[in-house]
């Protein structure tokens, strides 16, 4: 009898233990393996880096004490359905306090439904599709700027080039993010004198673009704008070369800012335009990392590869939680949610201040690959560096 009582007490103590352990836990389901692992790693590494940095600076001030942050990351294997189940698990079984996001819009679109259902705030830096923020959800916040504006700065820059391109081809993959980009871009193009000569959707994961490129070539398109994924863009550029397609410029939503994309293409990456909402500049001050340049250096040293805007956005997500918890002085989900909505601070990623729909507004800087380096060519204040334009034909490089 006595033994049974003791056993019951012991079990009770064990059950209660988790209530006292794990101070403030952030949970996320990220693509650590599978087809999106290449970008997923930015989130895994940047979340961990930010948590470590904040803890070594003393942690989070809440209720008069300094609490440490902890991080629980699950691998969704690049599978949307699995990632939804994992967010349910994080909320219902692991009982994490707050949620960080996965990479990619279609994931964030599905996963944010879980944060909304359980009223647990999610700050995600991996999904930019306007669809995520057009459903009136109260608990999802995003630190990537709206997909529909991705090409805004590029289109501004294009019109100031000499000789100005006259016709444009708009190509986009058929997923949530890229469809949003295309819808926005179409509206932006309608306001210009540029003629849209090709407007085509292609299937995600397509590896053959030869028909599409042949159409573009036959219509003598001056500028090509592509919203897609890195693998598709790699194939697109390689096949443009082999089919001798020579527009005056081409620009891509993703790929150009990341180092391994440039390495995979080698010299063929030259002249490609792209965009990024973040560059590791000294001007971006941060409470934990000093500034963005210092962050980039430390990140490279610790993980062995260059951070890009995905990593910076992920760090901003963790910092946003810390600032909001400190402002709310509570771990209550609803209070922290309101504090997030009121946030306004400077981070290494830029100014963090969410619009009423939960999304952030950051201007995209137009970048170009010049002699193997990523060069910022056009920003909010006009041209920064001289763009190499028009691109020389493939035969004359």
């Amino acid at each position, binding site marked *: 009898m006595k033994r049974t009582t003791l056993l019951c007490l012991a079990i009770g103590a064990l059950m209660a233990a988790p209530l006292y352990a794990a101070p403030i836990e952030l949970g996320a389901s990220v693509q650590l*393996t*599978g*087809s999106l*692992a*290449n970008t997923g*790693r930015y989130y895994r590494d940047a979340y961990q880096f930010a948590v470590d940095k904040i803890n070594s600076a003393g942690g989070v001030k809440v209720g008069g004490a300094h609490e440490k942050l902890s991080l629980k990351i699950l691998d969704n294997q*690049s599978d949307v359905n699995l990632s939804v189940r994992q967010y349910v698990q994080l909320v219902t079984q692991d009982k994490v306090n707050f949620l960080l996001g996965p990479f990619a819009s279609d994931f964030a679109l599905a996963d944010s439904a879980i944060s909304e259902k359980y009223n647990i705030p999610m700050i995600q830096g991996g999904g930019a599709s306007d669809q995520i923020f057009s459903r009136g959800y109260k608990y999802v916040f995003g630190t990537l700027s709206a997909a529909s504006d991705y090409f805004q700065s590029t289109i501004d820059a294009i019109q100031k080039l000499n000789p100005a391109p006259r016709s444009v081809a708009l190509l986009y993959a*058929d997923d949530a993010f890229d469809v949003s980009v295309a819808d926005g871009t179409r509206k932006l193009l309608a306001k210009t004198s540029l003629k849209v000569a090709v407007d*085509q*959707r*292609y*299937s995600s*994961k*397509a*590896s*053959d*673009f*030869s*028909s*599409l490129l*042949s*159409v573009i*070539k*036959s219509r003598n398109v001056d500028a090509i704008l592509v919203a897609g994924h*890195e*693998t598709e863009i*790699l*194939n697109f550029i*390689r*096949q443009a*070369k*082999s*089919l*001798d397609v020579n527009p005056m410029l081409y620009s891509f939503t993703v790929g150009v800012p990341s180092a*391994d*994309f440039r*390495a*995979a*293409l*080698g010299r*063929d990456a030259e002249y490609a335009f792209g965009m990024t909402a973040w560059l590791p500049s000294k001007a971006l001050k941060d409470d934990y990392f000093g500034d963005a340049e210092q962050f980039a250096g430390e990140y490279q040293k610790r993980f062995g590869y260059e951070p890009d805007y995905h990593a910076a956005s992920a760090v901003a997500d963790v910092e946003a939680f810390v600032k909001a918890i400190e402002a709310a002085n509570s771990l209550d989900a609803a209070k922290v949610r309101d504090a997030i909505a009121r946030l306004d601070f400077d981070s290494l990623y830029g100014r963090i201040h969410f619009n009423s729909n939960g999304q952030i507004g950051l201007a995209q800087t137009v970048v170009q690959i010049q002699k193997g380096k990523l060069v910022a060519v056009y920003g909010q204040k006009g041209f920064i560096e001289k763009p190499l334009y028009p691109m020389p034909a*493939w035969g004359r490089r």
Partner: protein
Amino acid sequence: MQLLWQVLVNGVLLGGLYALMALGLALIWGVLNIVNLAHGALIMLGAYVCYYLFTGFGWDPFAALPVAMLVLFCLGYLLQRYLLNLVIRAPMFNTLLITFGLEVVITYLAQIAFSADFRTINPSYAGANFPLFGATVPVVRILAFGVALALTVALWLLLVRTRIGRAIRATAQNLVAARLYGVDPRRLYALTFGLGAALAGAAGSLYGVVSQINPYIGAGLTAKSFAIAIIGGLENPLYVLVGGLFLGIAEALTALYIGPTYTDVVSFGILVLVLIVRPTGLLGRTA
């Protein structure tokens, strides 16, 4: 008209590569009655072998291709000899499961070994091209097409003209009779699987030259190979070639006239149609 001609050229060149991808799958399926779901993963491994010979030792990818074939042959032989032979008599569902498992294992090992970084095999002539009656023909694609054609014909000759080829066909047609004539099925199965894997190795090398490589390209390539093998028919390598060309042209024309977002709908739609109308493939003998 000019555009149609260009798109047809693109389709034919793509189809040749498709056919080579499907060739190994069809061979293994036809002879061993194993639908090898790890076929795409083997293609991926072949691509990495070629990639490392190219970047590490400066080998030309077309010189590295036979080495990739040899490496994959050995891997395929060992896989069949020591793993798949254990379940060869099991129902097809079991072999499907085990090859699916293999696919997952190979893919994840590849991510650990090679990382998820994107790679390309990018020799200096990768973007070269020449005009043909007004169409632009990429040099690497026509080379890849030539290799695919040569390997298809070589496999056909091997099956029809050589002793070992006769033994392979005999085993596929009637196992008992083949054994009575002295064929050792376990060795023969391993040899056939090795050949199929070697063809995957060749396809992977060419794929890396015209496209990009990462550990996850396999599953999509398996699906495509599967469709081509069904559309063409399993009996004869030349049928697979026809299946590949048919699909390549169909996809190219779909992208031109209906829209590139529908290429998969069309190719797998054709697969369903073929299964309903001619289950033995476009050219296969009807039962």
